[in-house]
């Protein structure tokens, strides 16, 4: 894209995009580490995930400030405007994704007798797909790539299928052995959180599509 006549405008936008990329990276790491902590029962790692969420909150606030500043001072138009509005919304959504990872990490200490739960192998696989969606959608934002954004949207079906299967699985544990109910319920919340992460990544994908083309992606 050709540069703006006013160079500082380009610098502002680059900085805003950089903040979103940084947020995305942190969210992705938070999901992965929360999963590792969940599987291994590493409570120190879980605490570190919780602590690092503050950084995401601070970055979101910075994105808000930056976006408002650009709107006020530069009066952006057309694709610039769409991109800044998208960044503003994406910042909020990625912060939410971080919250879900944090919530998963907080449950790590509540799971007992890890070995008996088969879903503990399914959940990380599900989280891997969700983390991949988060990664890809931020790549799509950085590259202004609506095609990659569509691919992310399509991937959400996979996450939903995982959720259904994990849900049934955990319910059967609870039915067969009431002693598992407490841990199984915790894992159900974990699966639910990952499912929400997938939905949020889908929302971001829609915004990337909007920023790039000015239209929302057609419904599947």
């Amino acid at each position: 894209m050709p540069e703006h006549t006013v160079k500082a405008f380009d610098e502002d936008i680059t900085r805003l995009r950089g903040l979103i990329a940084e947020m995305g990276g942190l969210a992705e790491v938070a999901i992965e580490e929360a999963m590792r902590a969940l599987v291994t029962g590493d409570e120190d790692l879980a605490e570190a995930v919780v602590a690092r969420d503050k950084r995401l909150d601070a970055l979101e606030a910075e994105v808000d400030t930056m976006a408002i500043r650009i709107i006020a001072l530069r009066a952006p138009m057309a694709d610039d405007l769409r991109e800044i509005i998208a960044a503003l919304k994406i910042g909020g959504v990625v912060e939410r994704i971080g919250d879900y990872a944090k919530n998963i990490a907080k449950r790590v200490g509540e799971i007992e007798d890890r070995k008996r739960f088969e879903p503990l192998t399914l959940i990380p696989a599900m989280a891997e797909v969700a983390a991949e969606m988060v990664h890809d959608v931020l790549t799509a934002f950085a590259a202004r790539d609506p095609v990659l954004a569509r691919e992310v949207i399509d991937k959400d079906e996979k996450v939903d299928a995982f959720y259904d299967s994990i849900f049934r699985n955990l319910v059967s544990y609870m039915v067969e052995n009431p002693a598992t109910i407490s841990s199984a319920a915790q894992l159900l919340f974990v699966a639910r959180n990952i499912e929400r992460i997938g939905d949020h990544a889908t929302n971001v994908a829609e915004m990337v599509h909007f920023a790039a083309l000015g239209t929302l992606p057609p419904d599947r």
Partner: protein
Amino acid sequence: MVTNAPPKMCTRDVSVWYGEKKAVDAVSIDIPAEFVTAFIGPSGCGKSTFLRVLNRMNDTIPSARVEGCIELDGDDIYASRMDVVQLRARVGMVFQKPNPFPKSIYENVAYGPRIHGLAEGKVELDAIVEQSLRRAGLWDEVKDRLADSGTALSGGQQQRLCIARAIAVQPEVILMDEPCSALDPIATAKIEELIDELRGRYAIVIVTHSMQQAARVSQRTAFFHLGKMVEYGETSQIFTNPREVRTKDYITGRYG
């Protein structure tokens, strides 16, 4: 904002030359009666020239030559039977720099209706002057000093006086050529508010260098570049999702 009403003005393949130089190149555009239409584009893109074609203002420039079809309510305004004085009453104009006559405020507004024979006697003329000044949002500020010279008013007031003068002859179309570029932000806001109030009563066409202004006051926007009209559409579409790359580069500040 789809409308079935016929356009107030209709132009087809309009080209304008200044001597050998083609300033406007085959522009076709419909001016809706009920909306404000903004023309934007970099200096020298032909937008002001095209605006001036709409009430034959270019007739006064000897080297200017106009081709194509320009109709007002279906009548060719360049036809030989068209009365140009009458045309300019129907299609009024407001210029960049306020240009009141060096006469009283009252006379500035009364002059047009008087020469066009729109008023029978003093009472009617007074009524036209008051109504025009009211519509131009100036009445309350000048009602006690109608005999003062128009040139003694502030810039913004002078511009509103010029709008009152244009309104006084009951035009159907008002052309505005950068009406706010000589005004401060408050006077500009008053003119913009006025344009919004006049919308619907008159078809309004405004040329502006301020894209923010075009976005604020118009419902339709046309982007001109190098004499051609590049894109014409609903204002919100032009400023959020322009179809043409040249429009996008211009409005986002990447060109021009």
